[in-house]
């Protein structure tokens, strides 16, 4: 089966080998975009979080075929090449929200989505929005810091 989709603004096509192949596998193994991570394959950990037509999804729960004709933005697409880092990515670095980094791509995409919807979130809103992303290293304190920093800087962004 051939899937045609737009990923990070680029029109792509890929052949899937077996039924049930996920969007995550398509991105990682067929489109050379391994930034989205596979940690649970059940939609529990959020490591594979991407935008699908502007909505947050776990790419592991989306069949590759469901992405036909749709637009995907992955962590690799958050910052255009040669542009300064996206405000969320920069804040994650500064706040120390990155340790092993395996959960980071998913957190960054989910936090980006939160700030697009809620530019100035309360701590409770941050926690609710990121409750679908597991981190095993940080205890989340620095993740909260990162989102607070990003929110403070992002005021007035488009």
């Amino acid at each position, binding site marked *: 089966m051939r899937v045609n989709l737009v990923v990070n603004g680029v029109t792509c096509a890929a052949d899937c080998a077996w039924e049930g192949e996920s969007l995550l596998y398509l991105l990682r193994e067929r489109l050379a975009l391994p*930034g989205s991570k596979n*940690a649970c394959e059940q939609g529990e950990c959020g490591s594979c979080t991407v935008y699908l037509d502007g909505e947050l999804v776990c790419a592991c729960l989306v069949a590759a075929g469901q992405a036909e004709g749709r637009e995907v933005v992955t962590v690799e697409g958050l910052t255009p090449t040669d542009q300064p880092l996206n405000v969320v*990515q920069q804040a994650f670095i500064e706040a*120390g929200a990155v*340790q092993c980094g395996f959960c980071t*791509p998913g957190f960054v995409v989910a936090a980006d989505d939160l700030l697009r919807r809620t530019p100035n979130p309360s701590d409770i809103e941050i926690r609710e929005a990121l409750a679908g992303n*597991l981190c095993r290293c940080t205890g989340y304190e*620095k993740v*909260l810091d990162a989102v607070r920093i990003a929110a403070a800087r992002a005021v007035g962004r488009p």
Partner: protein
Amino acid sequence: MSPNATPTRAAQELTTRVDGGVGQTARRPDATLKVKGEFAFSSDLWAEGMLWGATLRSPYPRARIIDIDVSRAVAMPGVFAVLTHDDVPGAKCFGLEVADQPVLAIDQVRYQGEAVAIIAADDPETARRAADNVVVRYECQDPIVDAVAALADDSDAVHPAGNVVRHQRVRSGDGEQATAPVVVRGEYEIGMQDQAFLGTESGLAVPADDGGVDFYVATQNVHDDRRQVAACLGLGEDMVRMTIVGVGGAFGAREDISMEVHAGLLALRTGRPVKFVYSREESFFGHVHRHPARMAYEHGATPDGKLVYVKARIVLDGGAYASTTAGVVGNAAAFATGPYRVPHVAVDAWGVYTNNPPCGAMRGFGAVQPCFAYESQMDRLAAELGLDPVEIRVRNAVSEGDVLPTTHQLIDSPAPASELLRRVRDLPLPPVTDGPRNPIELPGGAGNTTRGEGVVRGVGYGIGIKNVGYGEGVDDYSTARVRLEVIGGEPTVLVHTAAAEMGQGIVTIQQQTARTELGVEKVTIHPADTSVGSAGSSSASRQTYVTGGAVKAACEQIREALFRRLPDAVRGAGRLRLEGGKLFTPDDEAIADLRDVIGDEPIERTVEWRHRPTEEPDANTGRGNAHVQWGLCAHRAVVDVDVELGLVKVVELAAAEDVGRIMNPQGVEGQIEGGSAQGLGLALLEEIQVTDGRVQNASFTDYLIPTILDMPPMRLDVLEMADPHAPYGLRGVGEPATISSTPAVVAAVRAATGVPLKRVPIRPEHITGQEVRTAGNPRDA
């Protein structure tokens, strides 16, 4: 981005320019790659012509293998190899302490999930389907699943030599004869916790032209891996070259090998690169876990709350293979009485073989289990005597100059147990909110199960102690190769060690050390691999101490060599300083540019650095200078409990820890916060539920690790009381916070409910008293 391109990723040299020396919050050199999704994890690797590996595992905890038929699997299109134990050319078994675990099962399986056959195929789905087509005939046997029963002389044995992996006794003073006017007894149990790192076991083996294999793997100790892998592949260690590639967390679970030998076997057989990536379910079967424990404690004290004796029996379920069980037993015995003065001690700690999942290293390594028990006992004693929980701890707390009551080793660096306890006690308490509250902040959370009715607040304390570094006489060293040269007109340092970066920040520490010692801005971190000497394992909170120490020592040698290049008159001016690429006199006069002194003659030094030796403890008394350093952390937990539903919301965690010297403030905080979260998980959420040797919840849907909604805000108080024996005075910080947060949370729940909780993780029915039996938890407390 180029669509349809093939991914090619390998270990990355870390060259991102970040600032900061020792003591500063230097940013991670890998952080930019990680936030952009460009950091190469071991699961992201790809090589031309690569095959995918899969593992067939035993569905039974104990069975004889009658025969294995691989013919159907081999015949499948796209399948390149199907191997069993007959195909292992070297040592048939591996293991960190004892080589007792077959690479692939030989005639028998001893735990559910034991590897039986391995497959290499074109793609992961074909490999998985081929595994389904390997036919194994088993004859099931009754599994040995009760660790206490397995200790009996007449117990059926998991291995021919019997079920005891290690028995460590501790006897001091009057031992079991000791008596006291006040006595409290308790039995405690800890469930099986999983490290649950996010990046599952994965890696790539590439066959080399010389008949060897190049490995790209995620590990905590690349040299331990190489030793075991080379032996099993029947190759010399020089034929097995290993590079550490992006480690997605570890927490002890990557001390043992997992897919490495399997990938090597398949690569040698097929002549093609072979990649393994475990699914989450397979990961639960693919690594060791924290030992479940059953502990019986008796504390004797004077009426004014001074400890007289501690008697304890600790049984740790090691599962089917030894892994690091012996080391865990040693720690459980050495830290059985906690950071307290105790004149009389009688402790017996056992590590036991069963047909349960193998257990080994997890953050806190044998110090976690007894801490839950002895801290629960201290609270019982406080209640018995009508004393405040902090007060009874302070009255008994060790400090520098005491001996540890178990090993009788002199504590010869700061051990401010009382200070840590007082500090967490004196921190402001979170406010009690009157009126309606957002259900998200209450027990039950988004389940919206209460608006505050039936919710009771409790406060509890815990303190723990653990060694830093390898102990018990193990030669603990690390190797650093450091090179100072001018590149592009700028003095530049290359640091090359085999220290595994798993997220804890050793790459940052190495950069900070080199910047501080050599006064340069640009420090490149070479990928960690076996082309440099061993750094030992990234475990035991040791890597900043040991590899940091090695990098510091190599830098010092380079500095001496550099200074020897200076004219005598300059060198005679006194102690020179390197900063900002310049040499300064003691009067802060800049006398030379570093790059001019280096010129076109780089200076390189390789240093093997070790801390002072430790001793094996006596098997009968536990005595011996077993450790080089100790870490202490104290926690205060504040919880809200819905006493009707048995649900707990941790409102706040406060922690105080002495770290000797803060090498990187943000890094220290990250270790304390992350460690505390894992301790909270053990208290309330995390257990691999095992029934008759079978795992019931091998997924992130059913094995619960704390989310951002489960973790409360934290207050930290970090002390810097230098250890005179350690580089920069530092103290390892990786583990202590994991140890004390569990008993603090449980104590807070007890304070709120009055229920004498004796088992972790706490389940709602333990609080409500209404037992709920399900298929998954027959071992309810």
